[in-house]
């Protein structure tokens, strides 16, 4: 019983911390992204937002915001002494899915920029695509390692069938 309590306290802290960190990243991106859209629509080349070394993305910000909210709701669910494994899993799997997506985008970006030399990539830097992966990876990775058994199905050898 004592051990159960500990695990759930542990998870409560993890969910809150993960959620808040993602929340900061998400809100920053959304606000910067909004400025960027504004600057683009008014064609303000000189706007300060364009001085940031990567283009902020409002939609990516929203996606991260939702992951953060899933964890946050999970935190409150644990506070009510209910099972929040689902919240932990869904948030983490969504985040991992986005990391995979951004890795894919990074690879295609590098290909587009260097191998194909596309025009759109004149001002592109590796950092612009890489930063998502750097921002997003630590927490979901940590959750995946720490709570692997809750998030993923264990690969047991099905002995009964092997014979």
């Amino acid at each position, binding site marked *: 019983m004592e051990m159960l309590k500990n695990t759930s306290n542990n998870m409560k802290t993890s969910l809150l911390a993960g959620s808040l960190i993602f929340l900061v990243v998400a809100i920053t991106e959304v606000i910067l992204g909004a400025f960027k859209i504004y600057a683009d629509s008014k*064609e303000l080349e000189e706007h300060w937002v364009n001085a940031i070394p990567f283009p902020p993305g409002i939609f990516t910000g929203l996606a991260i915001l939702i992951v953060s*909210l899933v964890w946050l709701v999970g935190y409150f669910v644990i506070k009510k002494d209910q099972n929040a494994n689902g919240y932990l899993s869904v948030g983490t799997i969504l985040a991992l899915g986005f990391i995979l997506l951004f890795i894919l985008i990074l690879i295609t970006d590098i290909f587009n920029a260097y191998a194909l030399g596309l025009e759109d990539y004149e001002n592109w830097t590796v950092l612009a695509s890489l930063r998502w992966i750097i921002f997003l990876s630590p927490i979901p990775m940590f959750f995946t390692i720490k709570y692997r058994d809750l998030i993923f199905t264990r690969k047991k050898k099905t002995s*009964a069938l092997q014979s």
Partner: protein
Amino acid sequence: MSVKTKKVKEMTLDDKRVIEVALAGNPNTGKSTLFNALTGLRQKIGNWPGVTVEKKEGKKRCDGFNLIITDLPGTYSLSAYSLDEKIARSFIIEGKLDVVVQIIDASNLERNLYLTTMLRELGANVVIALNMMDLLEESSSSIDVNKLSKEMGVPVVPMIASSRIGIDDLENTIESIYQKEQKPIRITYSKEIEEVLANVQEILMSIPSIPSDFDSRWLAIQIIQNDPEILTFLKNWNVNKTIIEKLLSFGREDYEAEIIDTKYEFITNVTSKALKRGEEKLTRSDLVDKVVTHKWLGIPIFLIVMWGAFQFVFAISVPFMELIDMLFGWLAGLLVDNINIGWLGSLLGDGIVGGLGAVLIFVPPIFAMFFILSVLEDSGYLARAAFVMDKIMVKFGLHGHSFIPMLLGFGCNVPAIMSTRSLKNNKDRMITILINPFMSCGARMPVFILFAGLFFGAAAGTVIFALYILGIVVAIFTAILLRKTFFKGKSAPFIMELPPYHTPKLRSATVAMWDKGKMYLKKAGTIILIGVMFVWFLAAMPFGGVEYGGPDTWLAAVGTFFEPIFRPLGFDWRIVVALIVGFVAKELVVGALGTIVGGGGSEEGIKDAILADEGFYPLNSLSLMVFTLLYVPCAAVIGVMRKETGSWRWTIFAVVYSTVIAWLFALVVFQLGSLMNLGL
């Protein structure tokens, strides 16, 4: 039953015995996975006669014998009220089968065994393939295979189809039982029902024309449940009218419920002996469902999953599209420059290679779209998406399952319309088919990109987004209209299984991508290629002296003829020509414009030529985009609509309706724009 006729077929296939097998089972139990594992690529995909339900057949060489395997539609029952059940049932009755393999999801034994009781009552020679043993073990439940086999009176082969475990066992078991006669299962019903059954059976025995294939107890059970198909059977056997009436008079509404109850009691008795359930009350899937269907989180999660899917499609297809573009541009240039006979170089270069390139460039996004959708479907999330969207869809006169075809429509309307087969109610399905072309497919994108990019600068993205929204709005409006007029009534019940979440398998996503993407390649290879050559021909005729695509060609004559209808929309003959060509395929529109306005075939050249041309300006390019969005996507869609609706009338309706709607919306855009004098 036919399955009992003992025959050794010694034909074809290296003179070995041929065993005919059908795969039956509930949906989502791994039927396709097992079928693919058994047959590999030796399969034939067609339709069941007269209907648009897919039929797959395959062969498998085994040690000393050969299997011919038919994949039956996935069903929960065999009561012959739905099309799928009817197909499965009559194939089992008439198919001269040796063995029916029922694939069962071991983690969902009870409901799956219901179908087994029906198969056994029907008298089929059944083998149970007890699949998903890995999931069963994970849920810490267990099944006593021997007991299950004994209680159900059939062999049971445990397996994990997705890891190809247990396939050999299954083959051997099929071989060992195919000549043995299984006794039909006998579930004892209530005393009253048994008495009625006895009476009916007695009458049936006295009718000599009933083929010996038919089990009289099975027939009697169907008759007292008012099975509508039995009447057809009886008539076919020339049974005397008064006897038919007498037989049918035994039918009672309540028997059906009682019979189903008794069958499930029988099953509960079997599972109480053979199945040990784990303690876990809420499974992992249940916990995930609580999040995915959460009151506040459900719809945002749905939206970001869709957003992620589209990001995936774009990210992965851009480099491939660029490569295809470069390759075909280079090839076309090479042909035009190096073939000395002018018209031949132009036909091969501008016409065929250029046109093929314009079509093949859409292969990457379409394949990527099918890939990611198959991943979502395999994972189990797509069923939840339909669940989350159902209420909204019903408001619009649609059904939760309409959502997937609508989403697919953004890729290509052809497979999207084919995917409406998941809708079992005809009205729901017709509406979903008829509105699908308004979902803006990938082929319309180049037109939008060209014109929005040229005339709307920084607002191009917004304009394109607004076009997509307009398409969706028109689709919804049309759905509501159709539901209120031609397809009155409620949408079908949403009795849908929510399968447990699985980790998607790369292999099955790749197979699904290829299966569906092939349809697009076929379209590209046939209709579009012919269209390209036709346009080239008209643009080059009459021979001698006329400038290719110039005002003296046959192409111009066609455009000029229709021009008056389109003048109120701001189109001159050249745009009209491009739009007529667009009837064949939207992929041709940009190319056709290039042919007419000049620009040397390259994207940049076309842009410069259009900018320099007085016939193109922001307002008429806007109405051109609206028209392109709303009228018939392509000839292939017309073809597939005809096939899937089974009606020329509705196909023609869709073509005329969408063209009229397109004309009206473009008219409003152009005339309002002119009136308001926006300076566009």
